């Protein structure tokens, strides 16, 4: 898989891929097991990481503060 493929899968999962590109990607996913596995793994990872999004659910202030510090450290 090329970096372009990776970027396209990411854009697809983020809901940003145009219809014609979406069609091409889905056709490749249906034809190439490696691409299908990569898409599904990334989808699972994205579904997981979005549970850490501060806007996703209530009652997570304590954790959000902790992750906020991690983000601040990442930004440096």
């Amino acid at each position, binding site marked *: 898989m090329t970096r372009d493929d990776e970027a396209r899968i990411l854009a697809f999962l983020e809901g940003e891929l145009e219809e014609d590109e*979406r069609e091409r990607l889905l056709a490749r*996913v249906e034809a190439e097991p490696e691409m299908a596995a990569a898409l599904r793994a990334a989808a699972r990872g994205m579904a997981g990481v979005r549970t850490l999004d501060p806007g996703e659910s209530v*009652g997570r*202030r304590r954790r959000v503060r902790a992750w906020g510090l991690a983000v601040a450290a990442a930004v440096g």
Partner: protein
Amino acid sequence: MSDADAWVGRAARGDADAIEHLASVHRPAARRMARAVLGDDDAAEDVAQELLIRLTAALPGFRGDAELSTWVYRVTLNLCRDQLRRTRRRAGDVSLDEAVSEPALTTRSDFGAEVDAARTRVAVREAVERLPEAQRQLVLLRYVAGLPYREIARITGTPQGTVASRVFRALKSLGEDLEGQHLEVVT
């Protein structure tokens, strides 16, 4: 106005034939997309059915086919994400004490679902912490801080294409890690 836009206009006004036509177009598209993401025919069918229910309710708000197609795409992805989130660790993988330390548990009535959700979040946090430092930073900047790729590239001094590629690899690793921990999709 295109034919596709005309179908949407008629459906938005409650024309049953037009609603049926749009369902016949968008349901298979949603099922195909969900199958690609979930890799499971039954789960994809569930997503397509739920999409159809939401589509019927949302139709009066649409002005054209392009808008509707984008809506179908994004709602289908959200429904797939919901499916993937309905995960739980096998009993005993995370202690109840660890799970109930989540404050949300005290405010929700569906205790079992909240315990599963809390366990999932614990597993995700641990998996994110296992990512290589560079990938972890990018994932946090993108999905916790919610920054656009352009801004992440500026902050980290990394080309935007490289940021996207690393974010993809991080998500893939994360997904494989979670799968490897025997997180089960609950359908």
